């Protein structure tokens, strides 16, 4: 089943009444604020970063790019079932990503071992980095400030972003995915405003394969 269908089923089951209204208001706000248009675009170099992996290792941009093209996907945390469904779909194509010479990395603002919990709890075999305080997501231009109505929903559901992030901001990353070439330049940016509607993993894989073949297997 395509990711779009799985997300649609989950959306149908979860987003009802005021939950749906609050979430749609959030997405509308992002649309009006033109956030997608101002995220890091294709052709731009990605920022140099040094972030902790789920296992407590420090991983740098240069280190990750040393193996080849990079697929970077931002996700909110293991509290978001849509995010975890998307990561599970990416896990399914991980062997093909590797076969195409790529490396997959997921980034979350979650701290306190939650990156490790997301990785182990969902059987993920790619690096999951803690983007502490969203500093890297900010440099990608994919950080958003959820409106009060949406924050209230999260709070009612027992999702304490201040505790999870270790800061009171409550900012979360857009569900964005980037394909970056060996030189650290963005080749594709899939900026999904709506966490329930993500780019299909097959699309990412096609782009990666095209990039790898264009690079001539360097």
């Amino acid at each position, binding site marked *: 089943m395509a990711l779009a269908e799985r997300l649609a089923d989950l959306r149908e089951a979860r987003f009802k009444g005021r939950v749906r209204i609050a979430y749609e208001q959030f997405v509308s*706000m*992002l649309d*009006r*604020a*033109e*956030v997608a248009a*101002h*995220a890091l675009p294709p052709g731009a170099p990605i*920022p*140099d*970063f*040094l*972030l*902790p992996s789920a296992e*407590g*290792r*420090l991983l*740098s*941009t*240069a280190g990750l790019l040393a193996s080849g093209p990079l697929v970077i996907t931002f996700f909110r945390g293991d509290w978001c079932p849509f995010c975890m469904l998307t990561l599970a779909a990416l896990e399914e194509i991980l062997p093909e990503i590797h076969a195409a010479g790529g490396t997959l990395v997921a980034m979350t603002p979650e*701290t*306190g*071992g939650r*990156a*490790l*919990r997301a990785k182990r709890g969902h059987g993920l075999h790619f690096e999951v980095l*803690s983007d*502490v*305080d*969203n*500093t*890297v997501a*900010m*440099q990608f*231009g994919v*950080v*958003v*400030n959820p*409106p*009060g109505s949406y924050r209230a929903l999260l709070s009612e559901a027992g999702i304490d972003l201040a505790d999870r992030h*270790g800061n009171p*901001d409550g*900012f979360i990353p857009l569900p964005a995915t980037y394909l970056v070439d060996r030189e650290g330049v963005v080749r594709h940016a899939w900026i999904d405003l709506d966490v329930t509607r993500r780019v299909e993993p097959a699309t990412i894989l096609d782009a990666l394969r095209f990039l790898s073949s264009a690079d001539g297997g360097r």
Partner: protein
Amino acid sequence: MDLTQIRYFLSLARTLNFTRAAEACHVTQPALTKSIQRLEEEIGGPLLLRERALTQLTALGQSMLPLLEQIYLAAERAKEHAAGLKRQIASPLRIGFTAEAPMAPFMPVFAELAAKLAGFELCLVDGSDAGLSDALLHGGLDAAILTGAASLPDRLNRWTLFTDAKVLVMPPDHPLATAETVSIAALDGATVICRAPDGAMAKLLALALQEHGVCPATRHQGGTTSQVLDLVRAGFGITLSSALVALPGGLLKRKLSEHLTHDVVLAAVAGRPFTRATDAFIKLARAREWANAAGETEACPL
């Protein structure tokens, strides 16, 4: 939101003038205005009041200013640090450790910093919560590991990393060593040794004894942890220690049936530019799963 929007807003907050802010940011005024409007849309309200020739921050703008300044500085520093990584410059890290905080769980973090940061130089400083807080505020330390037992100054950011359980430490021939678990009540009439009367450990013990109506016969005091443990080994009495501290030979740990714990807190000065090593240390410490890290640390067998 993106850093460009934030940079424009910060310039506007400084100049309170759209023309001057646009010039300072090397963009046209319409571009700056549009960017601010987008930011206001995302934040959910006006950040500036535009009244004829007068521009001023709204209450929302004033409340968002320190937060956005911090975010911008953090992102800029992150860029500098990553660039510094390539240039292989020295990476000093001065960390204060309160006596009651176990060091062992932090070793993997220090090892990772040493492995990944060229020129990493670690300097550990011993002290009390109050003394270390003071040193932090005055720039003598980059970060500190505290017990968090007392309230910390507002200027310090603090993150609770994990909760440290306390155990009793005694020589093998001590009367209380026969049981695996000891109750507080059994300390009535015992000789206890603490490192400092105003330390978190001493306070924790005093509180526990008071709650159970227990009174030790004698209280000795050692100047350092090493001195306290030497006194214990020499038969002067028993002491309280972190379950995670590695003990020298000839000493045993016994669990307490009444759980005594305190938080292990990471503290750093809010808004201060960090060195590359400090930034990496704080990120590693905040991202880490400490509960298991603390549990997996090799402690002396009971």
